[in-house]
């Protein structure tokens, strides 16, 4: 009798325990572990020991528009004899993590190389490359160069002396031809991330050669008839009409300092606050821009 009571007592305990387990099961729904979203700390993994080097070319491009010309948003057919741009403090970086120009980030360089001199180039011509022109080249540790910065500075000598960017060319519309020279003096620093284009750039292996490219989008200045009128590029571009209106005897030769007096306040603000800062890219990749003067 005592054994039977003990057995029944334990059976009751088991049933009560199973009931408790059911409650426990209901309360403890299986949960997937959330992925660890912590961002890894930057490391110097991509830096090299300095012994394995290659040659890094830094090039500049005005794309096809600089070489072949194009039609502005207001119908002027533009061709360019020269587009001078002056570069200073051109620096290529291996950034880890990769630099995001649209965030409030700064480049976290594990390696960097800088061109030594202020250099003026002409975006319209290079006998070896129709699409870009060499600024300079530098011996650099092998690795992945995924960020580029430069100052668009005023030239100290040469055909663009005193200006950071100079356009010389011809505009034609409805039988009217205007020879134009537009001289820009504002200086900006462009800080850009990885090149985005048809090919990847900046991947430098030892005893090899790679290149990076500073790219200038001329449609931001003149607009592009190939795009819709309400395309944001055209909405934010100056066009050529404001310059054509200043021409005398088919010639306009003007600087941005003079344009401050000659353009409307709205047009001048567009030129200096929106157009010139938007000129610099890395392929299709964006840049952070800060004005120097």
């Amino acid at each position, binding site marked *: 009798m005592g054994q*039977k009571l*003990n*057995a*029944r007592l*334990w*059976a*009751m*305990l*088991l*049933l009560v*325990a*199973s009931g*408790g*387990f*059911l409650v*426990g*099961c209901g309360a403890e729904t*299986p*949960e*997937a*572990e*959330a*992925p*660890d*979203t*912590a*961002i*890894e700390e930057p490391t110097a993994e991509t830096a090299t020991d300095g012994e394995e080097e290659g040659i890094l070319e830094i090039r500049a491009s005005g794309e096809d528009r600089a070489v072949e010309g194009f039609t502005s948003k207001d119908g002027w057919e533009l061709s360019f004899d020269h587009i001078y741009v002056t570069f200073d403090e051109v620096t290529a970086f291996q950034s880890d*993590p*990769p630099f*995001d*120009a*649209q*965030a409030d*980030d700064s480049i976290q360089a594990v390696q960097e190389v800088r061109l030594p001199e202020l250099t003026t180039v002409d975006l319209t011509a290079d006998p070896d490359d129709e699409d870009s022109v060499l600024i300079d080249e530098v011996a650099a540790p092998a690795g*992945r160069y995924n960020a580029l910065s430069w100052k668009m500075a005023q030239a100290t000598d040469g055909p663009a002396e005193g200006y950071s960017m100079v356009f010389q060319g011809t505009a034609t519309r409805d039988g009217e031809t205007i020879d134009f020279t537009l001289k820009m003096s504002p200086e900006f620093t462009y800080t850009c*991330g*990885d090149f*985005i*284009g048809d090919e*990847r750039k900046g*991947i430098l292996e030892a005893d090899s050669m790679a290149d990076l490219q500073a790219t200038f*989008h001329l*449609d*931001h200045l003149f607009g592009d008839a190939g795009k819709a009128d309400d*395309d*944001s*590029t055209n909405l*934010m571009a100056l066009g050529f009409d404001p310059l054509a209106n200043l021409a005398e005897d088919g010639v306009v030769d003007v600087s941005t300092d003079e344009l401050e007096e000659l353009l409307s306040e709205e047009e001048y603000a567009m030129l200096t606050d*929106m157009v010139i800062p*938007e000129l610099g*890219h890395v*392929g*299709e*990749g*964006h840049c952070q821009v800060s004005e120097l003067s």
Partner: protein
Amino acid sequence: MKLPPLALLTLAGVGGLPTAALGHGVILERQATEAIEVTAQYDTGEPLTEAQVLVFSPEDPQNPWSQGRTDDQGRFWFRPDQDLVGTWEVIVRQAGHGGLVTVEVEETGAATAENPAAEGDDSGSSMQSASVNGVNDVANLSPLHRVVLMGTTIWGFIGTALFFWRRKD
């Protein structure tokens, strides 16, 4: 009072519930996998539809690991190889507009968006966002699995109770 040895073992089993369940032959496995969603749009809110997408693994930044096109809402999904730990890069391009977003795949297999806002454009109308979401596909038990798990465990308790409850003739 002297406790029956079998009862002690069963009580110990209450603390080790999964053992009791798996003892009835139900094998439960969980595998966390992750898919990455990239969304590309201009700052006007207009999506980059049918845009070219190139995915580069940490092993080869030169040649795409995968490629495709965004859908009509500017979205693209891919599932990175969790064995390739490091920074993955996704480039989205369309007619001169482009942006890049990176995804960090860590040792644990977790994927983290390094720069959820993509960079780049051709027009001042930048690709404004490239959201990256980790998705756990198989981590949760299905309702059927839960029912089977609870049922087999309860039946184990009831059977054991009936064993002690039975009359000895």
